[in-house]
Every structure is written in structure tokens, then in C-alpha cells.
């Protein structure tokens, strides 16, 4: 029979007096085996699930806490465009508050134009045109024009249409005529 080197043991310095195996007076050392199989199973399933649901585009827009987006079945992928957020409290553009939502009413703005929003939209457009001037090529210019008209409206589902209408009209006056309403995609059958 071959002689083999002994494996690791809990050293004699560890007090195992409290653990008695084999009846009264027996003092056998206890070895604890940690079963890693369930942990590896769980890790494998988690990794597979997270890889399947992984999205390379990431989060396009940060959802505000006070905005509950409406749900819809048909929605295209969201791209990154200037963002107007409308909650029950405030109207924000690119994270900066522009005005209070309660003030947005046709009786206050009979010409259907919100001056504060108009000002920031105009500044954003000028900044965009400075950073990305319209290309000379006809095809690229058309694409540039189409992209420059895009805007995202991220509104709470309970906001009345009157507010949406005024925001849309103001955006259209400032050249943002392609409106994208942010929604949460619903799975078919739900």
C-alpha cells in the first residue's frame, strides 16, 4: 500500500472540546465540508439570465421619480434627443426646471407658446447648430434636419392633454416638430 502525505487537518490549537462525536468521552475532530454545488448552480443560472437580458444600449433616459410613464405595446427603441420632462409639479428641460406645471394652461398663454420653455429650446437649438453645423452634402443635410427636429416628451400619465398640447406647440414653434412620447413597453398579452 502506497504511503501518501496526509491532507490538511484542523490544528490541535483549535479548541474542539464542545464537539463530541461518538458518544460520551469521545473526542474526534470535526471537519466541515462546504457544499459549493448549489452556489455554483445559482451563479450559473444568474449569469445566463443576466446575459440574456443584457442591453448594450443601456438606459437612454433617466426616469424621474415623480413621473409615471404610460404603458404601450407598440413603441420603437428610444434614441437620445433633447428631453422635456413633465411631472405634476414641474416642467423640466434636460434636468433643469423651467416652470411649474400648474401654471401651464391656455388661459395663461393664449398664443399657445410657453416663453420660458421657448427660451431654453431656442438656446438648445443654437447650441446644437454650433456644435454640429449642417453638412453641405444634400443627403447628410436631410438626415441632419431630421435629427435636429427630434425631441422627447417624458410626461406623467395623469397630466392633462392641455399641458401636452402647449408643450408640443411651443416645441414646434422652436423647430422641434418630431415629437417622441416616452413610454414603457408592455409585453404582448399583459
Amino acid at each position, binding site marked *: 500500500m502506497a504511503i501518501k502525505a496526509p491532507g490538511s487537518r484542523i490544528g490541535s490549537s483549535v479548541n474542539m472540546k464542545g464537539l463530541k462525536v461518538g458518544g460520551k468521552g469521545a473526542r474526534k475532530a470535526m471537519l466541515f465540508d462546504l457544499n*459549493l454545488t448549489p452556489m455554483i448552480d445559482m451563479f450559473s443560472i444568474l449569469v445566463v439570465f443576466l446575459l440574456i437580458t443584457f442591453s448594450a444600449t443601456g438606459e437612454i433616459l433617466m426616469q424621474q421619480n415623480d413621473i409615471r410613464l404610460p404603458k*404601450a405595446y407598440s*413603441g420603437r427603441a428610444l434614441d437620445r434627443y433633447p428631453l422635456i420632462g413633465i411631472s405634476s409639479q414641474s416642467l423640466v428641460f434636460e434636468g433643469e426646471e423651467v416652470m411649474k406645471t400648474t401654471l401651464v394652461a391656455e388661459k395663461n398663454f393664449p398664443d399657445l407658446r410657453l416663453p420660458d420653455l421657448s427660451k431654453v429650446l431656442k438656446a438648445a437649438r443654437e447650441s446644437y447648430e454650433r456644435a454640429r453645423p449642417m453638412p453641405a452634402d444634400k443627403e447628410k443635410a436631410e438626415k441632419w434636419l431630421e435629427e435636429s427636429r427630434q425631441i422627447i416628451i417624458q410626461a406623467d400619465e*395623469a*397630466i392633462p*392633454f392641455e399641458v401636452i398640447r402647449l408643450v408640443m406647440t411651443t416645441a414646434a414653434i422652436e423647430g422641434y416638430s418630431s415629437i417622441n*412620447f416616452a413610454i414603457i413597453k408592455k409585453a404582448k398579452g399583459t
Partner: protein
Amino acid sequence: MSGPQEISKGGKKTLGVALNLVPMIDLFSVCITFLLITAVWTQTGRISVDQSVQKPQKQQQTEPPKRLTILLDKNGYWVKFADLSRESIPKVDGKYDAAGLRKKVEEMKLPKDQKVIVAPEDQVAYSDMITAMDTCMSLGMANVVVADANSVAGEMEK
């Protein structure tokens, strides 16, 4: 040592290999941490429209265009196509009947490029407008625009 070891069983010699799982567990831990941090749990999308919000028009239109108009008021939907009479889809349990609207639009058998105008009244909630648009888009009609209820009031009264 974790190298192969000879094991003798019933006169036959086999090689037993001890598999080191520590690197695999490390890799799994790092992968899971990274994927959990970068996970996107809510899928957001967009419904695109061309701006078509018009100011109220006092003149009545003489010839109604061939378009499908869906008016949302406090009582429910009003659906009108071209010069046909308008049809009402009242609310059910205080909520807009999206299933009824879908059924009505499906019965009309309209082409996919049919222009659809969704015209909510001012007090209608944004989510109800989105639901009406989504109902039409899920039936394949992508040419959906938003209009002011007052701008379509003239054609809806006929």
C-alpha cells in the same frame, strides 16, 4: 497538489483529476456583479408623431378628408371615418374602452397607411391619449397624428 493522481480500483488504474473551481467562482462573482450593475430593468420606448396641433378653426370644413378621427371626450371615444356618421364608444366602468376602440377600428378594415388623428379634449389624461394612439399603431397604422379637439369638432358634428 491538484495534478492527476492514480487511483486503483479493482486492479484497474484510472486518473482522477481535481478540478479547481476557485477561478470559476471568482469569474462568476465578477460577471454577476457587473451585469447586475448594468442591468436595465424597465424597457422604455417611444411613440413618434409629427406635430399636428392646430389652433381652433371657426370655419366648418366643406369636404371632410378621408381620414380616421378619434375624438376623446369625458364620456368616451367618438370615431369617425371620412364622411360616415360618427360612432360612440362610451367609457366602461369610468375608463376608456380601448378594447372596444380596437374592435371598431378592426371592423373598418382600413389600410396600414391610413392617416389617423387622435384628438383629445383638454382634460383628457395623457395616458388615455397614448392608449388610443397605441391601439391604432398595434393594428399596423403608423401614420398617427395628434390634434386639438377643437380643430376636429366641426367634422365630428356631421
